[in-house]
Every structure is written in structure tokens, then in C-alpha cells.
């Protein structure tokens, strides 16, 4: 794998600051608190470890890529911080169980703290992280990766908690079963663990991962930070870059949030401001912001991205820091085309989340 190592680029502090913002936007409210993730990445850097990204085209076909990420409820990861080596323990246990050595780490979910978790674990293991991920955003459940959708079997897998417990999921008959069992286990482990899945080949990863999402998230974050520094409109900068639309502005007027089945479930009501005055918005939450309705009418839903930003700063707000009285902007961004195929929509379309009455109209096609 020497050739691969030569093609890597090493992240610096500015990249991490940009990734915090970019992954926060793509996180659609979930994926874990990116601020905590940023601090962990910086802390790992200061300990002398290198955070490296491997360009997708430098990944060799026979390379073994282990995708990993945090699993649980964002509110827990914001309060019960990690021990720090959960991911490394997963990776080592998985290698031992399956008798292989990983060549690179993969990202399950570019949105939120789950963009940072692979970087930290890979840095401890001396490996790079491939420039791509399984969602191009954040989703609440594990079977919702393009890896799983396009045929990767993610078991055997290993889940570790801060206590030192490690659980191996030997075999799941389907990806959904893997999710159900993993969710039960993560509740027992306290609601915020890390899970590493069975390795993918480099060839598979190149074909089915959402490509270049580290580059995308860092570039997006940088664009927002630069717009802010230049006193330009960061919301416009995001929309322009991602082909999105600013669909609502308002003030959080009610917030229902609770833990259920290991998820943060809830609804946020938004009272319209500015040109939305007189309208009421409603955001449905399952770890992520999934659906946005205006006066009862659906405006955007999964798999397209519902992004909630601070109305003035343009910085992303995650579900666990939402608060009564906040002034927010709601944006709709189109998802990657790999999430729009019929087989993908079966897993990440509105019906997969129990929204039987919603029909998904891809933003990218109606725009």
C-alpha cells in the first residue's frame, strides 16, 4: 500500500475548522455534534497523530476498507463524551475476528461528528481515510448507507462503548436486522457507541461510495467561513455551492423532543419571520431533520437534505442544540444521485421512515 500512502493529503487545523462547518451542514442536524468532533480531531493532531485523506482514485481495487462511525443518539454524544479509543478497539477486534489487516478507513456518514470519528480512529491506527462516504449527509440508521443499499454485507461487525465492552455481530440476515440488533445493543451500552463494519474492497468502495465528500464538506465549510469573513451572505454561498434553496425563515416556537428506541425523536415548530410571516413551519426529527412542512404542506423530505442554520450567522444548528426562541433559516439541498435510484429510495425514501403519505419529488429534477 506504499503507493496509496504517497497520494494522501494531511489535514491541518484550518481543514478541520472548515470540516466542522461543512459536515455540520451536510449533517442535517444529526450525525453527532461536529463541535465535539472538531475538538477530538484537533486533540488527536496535538498528540502528534496525522489525519490523512486518501483520494478516491488512489484507492487500490484490492484494498480493504473498514467503514466505521458513531451510533446512538446525538444528545448522548453531546453529554456523555466518548472515552476516545472506541473506534480503534472496534477496528482491532474486527481485524482479529476476521483475520485481516485494514488498508484504509472508510466513513459511514459525512454529516456531523461521524465525519471526524474515522479520522481520529484512522490516525491512531496510522491509516488514511478514503475521500468518500456512505450517505453524503447523515441518516439515522445503518442500513441507509450506499454501501448497504448497493450490496455490501456489513457483518461481521464490532461495536464498542466507553466502558470497554465490545460486541461482535456475527451475522445479520439483512442490513435492517443488523440495524435493529445494533440499536438494541447501543441502548444497553448507554446510547453512544462506535461500530466498525466488515471490510469492503477498494473496487466496491470506488463504485458505490458517495464520492469526494471530504473534499466537498471541507470546501463547503471554507466557503461559509469565507463568506462570513467577507460579510457576505453565507446562506447564499451554501445554496449556490450545493444547488440548494432557502425555503423558510422563522423562530422556534415549540420543541418536542424525546428519546425513543435509542433515537432522538421530535418535532420543532417554527413561527415564520420576514417574508414567511404568518406561516408556520414544522420540522420532523429522527436524530436528523427529515421532513419540513410549511402550513401543513410538505416542502422537502428525505433523502434530500433539510438543513437548519442560524438565521444570522449561517452556521448549522444540530438537533441537540435547538432551543426555544432561536431564529433559524431552513434550507433544502438536493441529495446525491446514488440516493435517488429506486433501490435507494426503498431504504432512504420517505416511506422507509414511516411517512406513508409523502411522495418524494427529487429537488434536483424539479429545480
Amino acid at each position, binding site marked *: 500500500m506504499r503507493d496509496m500512502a504517497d497520494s494522501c493529503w494531511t489535514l491541518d487545523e484550518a481543514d478541520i475548522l472548515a470540516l466542522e462547518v461543512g459536515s455540520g451542514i451536510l449533517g442535517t442536524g444529526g450525525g453527532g455534534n461536529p463541535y465535539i468532533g472538531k475538538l*477530538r480531531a484537533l486533540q488527536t493532531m496535538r498528540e502528534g497523530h496525522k489525519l490523512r485523506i486518501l483520494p478516491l482514485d488512489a484507492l487500490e481495487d484490492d484494498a480493504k476498507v473498514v467503514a466505521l462511525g458513531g451510533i446512538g443518539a446525538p444528545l448522548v454524544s*453531546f453529554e456523555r463524551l466518548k472515552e476516545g479509543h472506541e473506534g480503534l478497539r472496534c477496528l482491532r477486534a474486527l481485524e482479529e475476528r476476521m483475520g485481516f489487516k485494514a488498508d484504509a478507513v472508510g466513513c459511514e456518514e459525512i454529516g456531523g461528528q461521524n465525519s471526524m470519528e474515522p479520522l481520529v480512529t484512522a490516525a491512531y491506527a496510522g491509516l488514511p481515510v478514503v475521500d468518500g462516504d456512505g450517505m453524503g449527509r447523515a441518516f439515522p440508521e445503518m442500513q441507509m448507507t450506499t454501501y448497504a443499499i448497493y450490496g455490501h454485507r456489513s457483518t461481521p461487525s464490532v461495536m464498542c462503548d466507553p466502558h470497554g465492552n465490545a460486541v461482535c455481530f456475527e451475522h445479520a440476515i439483512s442490513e435492517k436486522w443488523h440495524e435493529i440488533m445494533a440499536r438494541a445493543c447501543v441502548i444497553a451500552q*448507554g446510547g453512544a457507541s462506535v461500530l466498525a463494519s466488515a471490510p469492503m474492497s477498494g473496487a466496491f468502495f470506488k463504485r458505490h461510495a458517495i464520492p469526494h465528500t471530504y473534499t466537498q464538506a471541507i470546501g463547503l465549510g471554507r466557503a461559509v467561513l469565507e463568506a462570513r469573513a467577507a460579510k457576505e451572505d453565507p446562506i447564499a454561498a451554501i445554496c449556490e455551492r450545493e444547488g440548494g434553496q432557502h425555503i423558510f425563515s422563522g423562530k422556534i416556537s*415549540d420543541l418536542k423532543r424525546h*428519546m425513543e428506541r435509542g433515537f432522538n425523536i421530535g418535532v420543532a415548530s417554527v413561527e415564520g419571520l420576514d417574508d414567511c410571516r404568518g406561516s408556520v413551519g414544522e420540522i420532523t426529527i429522527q436524530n436528523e431533520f427529515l421532513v419540513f412542512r410549511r402550513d401543513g404542506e410538505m416542502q422537502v423530505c428525505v433523502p434530500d437534505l433539510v438543513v437548519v442554520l442560524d438565521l*444570522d450567522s449561517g452556521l448549522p444548528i444540530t438537533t441537540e442544540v435547538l432551543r*426555544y426562541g432561536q431564529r433559524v433559516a431552513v434550507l433544502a439541498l438536493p441529495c446525491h444521485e446514488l440516493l435517488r435510484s429506486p433501490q435507494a429510495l426503498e431504504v432512504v425514501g420517505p416511506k422507509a421512515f414511516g411517512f406513508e403519505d409523502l411522495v418524494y419529488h427529487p429537488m434536483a429534477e424539479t429545480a
Partner: protein
Amino acid sequence: MVLRLGIDVGGTNTDAVILRGREVLAGVKSSTTEDVIGGVRSALEAAIAEAGVDRSEIDVTMIGTTHFTNAVIERRALDPVAAIRLGLPATACLPPMVDWPEDLVEMVGGHRYLLRGGYEFDGREIAPLDEEELVRIAGEITEKGIRAAAISSVFSPINRGMEERARDILQAHCPDLPVVLSSEIGRIGLLERESAAIMNASLLSLSDHTVDAFGQALKDAGLTCPFYVTQNDGTLMAADMVRRFPVLTFASGPTNSMRGAAFLTGVKEAIVIDIGGTTTDVGALAHGFPRQASTVVDVGGVRTNFRMPDVFSVGLGGGTIIKGDAETLEVGPKSVGYRLLQKALCFGGDTLTTTDIAVRAGMADIGDTEKVAGLDADLVEAARAAIYAILERAVERSRISPDPIPVIAVGGGSILAPDRIGDLEVIRPENFAVANAVGAAIAQISGEVDRIFALEGTTREECLNSAEREASEAAIAAGADPDTLAVIEREDVPLAYLPGNATRIHLKVVGEMGGLDA
């Protein structure tokens, strides 16, 4: 009619105002003194004399202070603190104060302790409390002369039992040690809550000293009325609360100046610029209230999750130093600060300041105009343009709609403000220089509920409504005008570990103090 005394203790000036109903009877500025008492005493004596009222008629005193914020920003008078976190083996990846500026960590001693304990989200213990380690830490606290402790347990907003037990153990070994519990201060979000608890602990000696000084100054002046201190959200808290929770005053300065500006002008939608000696704070009034920041706010470089107004500071004030000529002009950010009366040219000093530019340009009539008569006209014009540009940028940043709302200029340095900023009209109210003290004098009354409700046999909406009624009644009982009540905080945290579908509801209602009208 209610007679109230408002005092603002700032870093440079201590101001006092006396209000009868809506009428400002007196407004005076005096210098802040090292011991606080002297400045408060001379300001309030001058105000009483100017108002011509009998001091026994004063019904209530309200004090606003930036003393504690400034201590953190300027890194002074902070005590060393034992920052104790209960959460191992979880949370090890990010130790306490991990996101603080280095020099501030040093000021509070960098005493970080992580030990076993804390709760899971469902109320299980992460680990039993490591009592032996606590006893060892108690020994170290005594040995190292650490002055206070801050204890933060994982999920303490859901169950504060372990923080309380840890406090009892520490105090059994260090009887006089003040201990701050994170659950008394903040919400879910370990790092922010823990940071607030540590900052609070580091300020306890200063708050003790300061509250004593306030009380002494009022007593010396023969004032026997109750006194209150204004907190972040513009409401009042009793003196003993400030003693225990000085961090709750962190944002009271900008809150008071914006509320004071709204009161003095009667304008409800505006941008407020508060121009002091060194900096200008810019914020927005919406419906007569300071617009709140949505995301976390830094205080002295530390992230907090307090509810605070969205205020933006620029390095421009009445004492800002001007360098160079018309071509190479530099405006600030250095300032002569409180030495303006010695340093500025128009007061016979040797330093060219923004105040001198204002005097030379005929915008203000203070000091000796002769002393600035010789300033180069091009330089004055260039400096004036530069000052306007700074103000215009700051105002634009706080403006969120193209509506032509007015700009209210307050603070001692507001002579720098032109009559228009961009396309917006500038209003300079009478008593503009003491808007902060006016804001303190009209601080709001709050009513608060923070308690566990059982949802069994009822609904979330009913519980929230009953909490709102209860908080409103408390606010009215404390003197709030019922017609002005508004909910400013409303949070429910379901407590999965308790039977009966329990939820913790935190709700805060505020209203104007009655007796302001007519």
C-alpha cells in the same frame, strides 16, 4: 410613584440614574474605583443631589455590572479552581477546559480531575462515584491552596444526586471550600455546562467582595431599600444569588444598554450602538427587546450556552488612538481608555484620539477646541470617514432586514456617531451617556419554574401550560405587570429513567416592573 435608583458599574465608569415612573430625574457619570465602593458612592450621591429627592423615598436599587465579565476578559481576580468531572471511563477524550484559551486555563490553575462516576441517559450509573479519589483530591486542594471547586457529572441535569454527594464529601474534608455544581448552572451539553461552572467557581471571591462592596456603599449612603443585580436576560436577581452565581451577570452590560436605549427613545425596532471608551457594542432591538444569539456565545474565549443578546463588538471608542496622516491613517484598535481626560489632545494631553477628531469636526463641544484647532483638515476628514465606515459596517452586520429602522446611539463615546449611518437615521436620546444605568433601573421581573412533572394522566401541553401559569403568577407576585408577560425560556427534558413518564420542565416568564407607566 415608584422611585428607583439604577447603577451601572462598568470597567471605566460608574453611572447612576434616578427614575420616577418613566421620568429620568437625574443621570450622572463617575469613575469606577479599584474598590468599587468609592465609585458607587460618588455616583449615587451625585444622582441623589441632582434629582433633589429624599433618599429615604427611594424604593429600590438595581445594579448592573460588567465586573465579572471584565475579570474573565482581562484575566484578573480569578481564583484557582479544582475542575472535577465525574464520568470516567466515558468523557476521557476531552478533559475539562479543553477548548479554553491557554492563558485562562493558567489563571485558574489548570487543575483538572477526571474520576469515575456520572450517569447514563437512562439514569444508570456510568460507574459508582470514586469516593476514595475524591478524598485524595480534597487533600490536594488543601495542599495546593486551591480556592474553589466545580463539580460536573455526566447527565447531572437529569439527576444531580452524584454531584451533591461529591460536594458533601469534599466539604467534609475541606469545610470552607466553596463548591459549584454544574447542575445548578447549565443544561445538557457537558463541556459548556462544565466551563460555566468552572468560571463561576473562579469568580466566587470576587463576587463575594463585590456584593459586599455594593451593600456597603448603599449602607454608607443611608439607603435601606432592597437591592438587586441584573442578569444576562435583563431580569433581576437578589444579591445573594449573585454571590453564588456571578456568571449569570455575564451579558447584563449589553442587555442593559439596549433596554435603556429602547426605554429612552420609545423605539421598539432599532439597531443600538453603545460607544464606550475602547469598544462599540452593536446589537438589535426587536419588539423592544435585545435580539438573542441563537448559537453559543464566547465569553473571554470560552464557549457558554447562556441565553445572551446577539452583540457584536468593534474596537472603536471615544479613546481610540489615531495614527498616521490622511494617507497612512490607522484608527485603533488601541485606546487610551479611562485616561482620556489626561491623554486626549483636547484635554491637554499628547495623544490624538477619536474624541479630538469629533471636537475638531464640530461634532462635540468638550475640552478645549483651541488645542485641536491646528489638526490637518485632510487628516480630520479621513479619520471621520474611517470612523463612519467602521460604524456602518458594524450596523450592517446587526441589520437583518432592509427596513429603514433607526440607529440609537448611546454611551459616553456616542459623540462619534454621525447623524446618519448609511441610509439609517441616528437618534441620540437625552441621557444617552447613562443608558446602561437606565437599563438597570428598568430591569424586568421574572418568574421561573424548574421541576419534574409526571405526564401520566395528563398531556405535555397541559403540563407546559400549568408551568407557564405558575411562572406567571410568581412574576406577578414579584411585581411584574401582567400585561407585559412573555415566555423567554421553555424546555422540557423527558426523564426516561423515572416511572410515570416524567419530564423536567424549565420555563421562565418575564415582565416589566409595574409602576413604570403614567
